[in-house]
């Protein structure tokens, strides 16, 4: 579904992504792990179009994504849950979800999606009228994920959803991601909590210095000595 080949991108200074290739199949759960500054967020920004690559290809359903305007990309079925949540602070929780449902599919499925979202995150129903900026970090993360789901995506990209959250809360988030995956939505997850991220995923990539250093399923990655030492602390 998502195919990225030989991607190069940066912010005008030194190149951050240096020939990166990954793919995500429909309905798959793929995790990307890697150290700070490896270029994970940069990759997501390039997929969403906030950043233009200097070279390489991105295809979604066989279509050249780089030819699609950034604000049109979510309409193809890609939802981006950004690093640091980035909810709309002055909008109520429900209005945040409504903004997520800006895509045609999201509007069509709004009633069903909203029911599913409140099923996954009941607390958002209780807070529906509250400005999202006044919620706790964990709840804001739920809004950010729910807002992504409201667009009826086929691919949900999440950039460090557990960042800054208490272990119990981030565990809850990971459980919800597994449920979302069971609904048939493909997931591309960037995480620092490597053990959890790799355990839930069908496949994983290790991103280091703007390149894929290693690729494989949980067995392969957790069997690799470097991964065990650097990321799993084993």
């Amino acid at each position, binding site marked *: 579904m998502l195919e990225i080949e030989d991607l190069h991108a940066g912010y005008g200074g030194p190149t951050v992504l240096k020939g990166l290739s990954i793919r995500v199949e429909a309905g798959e759960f793929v995790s990307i792990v890697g150290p700070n500054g490896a270029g994970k967020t940069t990759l997501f920004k390039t997929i*969403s*179009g*906030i950043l233009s690559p200097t070279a390489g290809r991105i295809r979604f359903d066989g279509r050249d994504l780089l030819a699609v305007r*950034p*604000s*049109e*990309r*979510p*309409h193809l079925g890609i*939802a*981006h849950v*950004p690093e*640091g949540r*980035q*909810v*709309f*602070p*002055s*909008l109520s929780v429900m*209005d945040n979800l*409504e*903004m*997520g449902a*800006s*895509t045609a599919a999201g509007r069509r499925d709004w009633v069903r999606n909203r029911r599913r979202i409140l099923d996954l995150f009941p607390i958002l129903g209780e807070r529906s009228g509250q400005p999202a900026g006044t919620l706790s970090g964990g709840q804001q993360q739920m809004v950010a994920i729910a*807002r992504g789901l409201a*667009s009826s995506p086929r691919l949900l990209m999440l950039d460090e959803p557990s960042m800054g959250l208490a272990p119990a809360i981030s565990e809850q988030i990971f459980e919800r991601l597994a449920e979302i995956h069971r609904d048939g939505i493909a997931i591309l997850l960037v995480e620092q909590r490597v053990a959890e991220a790799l355990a839930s995923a069908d496949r994983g990539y290790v991103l280091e210095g703007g390149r894929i250093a290693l690729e494989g399923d949980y067995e392969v990655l957790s069997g690799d000595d470097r991964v065990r030492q650097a990321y799993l602390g084993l």
Partner: protein
Amino acid sequence: MPMAQLLEDVLQALNAGLLVGALYGLMCVGLGLIFGVMRVINFAQGDFMMCGMYAAFYLFTALGVQAAFGPYGGPYIAAILAGPPLFLFAWAVHRLLLSRVTGMRVTALEGEGHYAQLLLTLGIALILQNGGLFVLGSVPVSIRTPLSSSAFEIGPLLEDGYLTIFVNKARAIAALVSVAVAIGLLLFINRTRLGKTLRAAADNPQAAIYMGIDVERAHRVAFALGVGITAIAGGLLASSYPFTPYVGLEYVIVMYAGVVLGGMGSIGGAFWGGMVIGLIQQLSTLVLPTQLQNTAIFVVFLLIVLLRPQGFFGRSVERT
């Protein structure tokens, strides 16, 4: 009874301040909408307002609004009708000019982007002023309505005839229309999907793009709407105050003072900011000569910027 006289003067100034403040409030709402969503300092806002005043004037006199609605309702209809053409004009200005120096492409440029915006809006302001002078001439005009020379009398509030307040009818109705338009805009921003889209684009443009929101279009809507709203405020002002193509210069100060007072980027705050500016302006006439009215506003403006840059009414809007 000098005490009663003083009280009467104060109440009269208060009344004048509230009436003109309601119009300033609406002007500020238009500017505040633009600033809140686009983060663009629009120097031309006063001159767009001047265009709105002339639009209302010509709609009223030459284009048949007076003939159709009479001298009583006509001025207000003309003021409201001045909104749509200015909306379209601003839409085109954004499409052709402003969008080149604003929006996501420019946010990456930081300071440099802002210089381009300042120069462009200043340029538009000069073109509108001088173009206006060329086309419309420098003779002051105003929309004439018999209502501007009649007043509601309140009082006498004291026995033996003291304390009567005169509320000018034309200004009172203009103030009510202004409040109604401001409430309408507030409902639009808070209740409709498009309104929420504008707020989302203001809150976090990058996340708005992630939602599939066309942020450039949101900016265009906000800019056009903000200009249209300020134009209506100008049209309402046009039935009480004579104006020339240079009128914008005077009111852009009023608008910035009001918006800054209201806390940069909050619509409700901008209205109250404008209201307070109107009150300060009118109350200052009690102690200062009339020519210094705008100096009072300027002093207040500077005091706000120095003492409370986040404003008095709005939340401080920091962007993530």
